[in-house]
């Protein structure tokens, strides 16, 4: 049982310990999809949805595994749930907007290997959050991921017009900008304490 209040859990997951910029989770989609704003936003919402499903299911699974005294099955059970949730989202987006489905491309099935989701489920378990706290943590984590993705895509769209040396274009510059963004997020430290 963890005594943290729901407000604290929400602020902690979305800003103070932002999954992407402070805990280094979900870096691959963060670098991969953040080039354009129009793909960053739907990607963010897809991740929020998968996080919610994964958060709720991981809580239930953890209770069952504790009952059967089989914590060594945790990793396999969590990844199976996440993979199924991603499949669901993929089918929904394909039905809802085929254009968007093509724009997200390979990064949609890769949400399965998005460590932000797995990490969120594992952190919630490690901190012994109850059901409401897990739910809040999942929403906060998803919002934090979306926020980081949208901020980054805005910066990178501006960067397209900037005059940078040719060898610095691409991944190197993106990482350095992410570092500066991460420094800015350090300013949230202590918030909600």
């Amino acid at each position, binding site marked *: 049982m963890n005594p943290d209040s729901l407000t604290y859990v929400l602020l902690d997951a979305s800003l103070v310990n932002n999954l992407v*910029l*402070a*805990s*280094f*989770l*979900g*870096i*691959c989609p963060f*670098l991969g999809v953040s080039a354009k704003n129009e793909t960053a936003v739907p990607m963010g919402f897809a991740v929020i949805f998968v996080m919610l499903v994964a958060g709720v299911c991981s809580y239930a699974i953890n209770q069952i595994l504790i009952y059967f005294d089989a914590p*060594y099955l*945790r*990793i*396999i059970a969590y*990844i*199976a749930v996440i*993979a199924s949730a991603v499949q669901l989202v993929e089918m929904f987006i394909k039905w809802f907007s085929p254009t968007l489905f093509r724009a997200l491309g390979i990064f949609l099935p*890769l949400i*399965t*290997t*998005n*460590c932000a989701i*797995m*990490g969120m489920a*594992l*952190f919630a378990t*490690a901190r012994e959050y109850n059901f409401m706290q897990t739910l809040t943590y999942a929403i906060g984590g998803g919002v934090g991921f979306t926020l980081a993705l949208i901020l980054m895509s805005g910066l990178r769209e501006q960067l397209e017009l900037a005059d940078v040396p*040719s*060898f*610095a274009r*691409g*991944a*190197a*510059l*993106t*990482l*350095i900008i*992410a*570092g*500066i963004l*991460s*420094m800015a997020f*350090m300013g949230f430290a202590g918030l909600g304490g």
Partner: protein
Amino acid sequence: MPKQDTFTPGEPPVLEADVFLKGLWRENPVFVSLLGMCPVLAVTNTVMNSLAMGLATTFVLFMSTSLISLLRSFIPKQVRIPVFIVIIATFVTIVEYSIQAISLELYENLGAFIALIVVNCLIMGRAEAFASKNPLPRAMLDALGMGAGFTFALFCLGAVREILGSGSFAGVDLFGPNFQPWAIMILPPGGFLVLGGWLLLFAWARERSDRKKAEAEAAAGD
């Protein structure tokens, strides 16, 4: 040399040594392909953590790609991804419990990132792109090469971050008591900045050698 049916179409046949060596440098998973970035940034605040993480990942990569390569003709194509994930998750669980048994301190330092090896895209990527199409010896060589390249990259980051951020190397104090540590380097932003710096350095070196080569060719043409 007779053409083997295991080569992927369109890819020229490569030497056995090259299967191992390409992972170290030319197709380095971190510096070139940008795969498995999360542990690369998260646990590289000291040299010891970096090496432990690199070795743990190499072990999981080696064992799971070997098994996948052995089973590659039995796994139905439609369900291969779930099968790969279950195989990888099994070895990750083994590694997690082993590290906990060997060193509790290391286990606490690496935290959730040991369990997160399961979602390391490097392992999934090699399983899908190489091990599921190649015989066991080649898959093993490839896994060793990629694992060594990954460990090397983690070491590069961990060394720079520990020297700048704590003034020590693998726990040994380098600069004496008057050193003012550059604390940001062991905090999260340091990970992004140091990796960005390494990538800048490599890109600059590559561009420079390309230009030199072009100049030499132009001079030879005159």
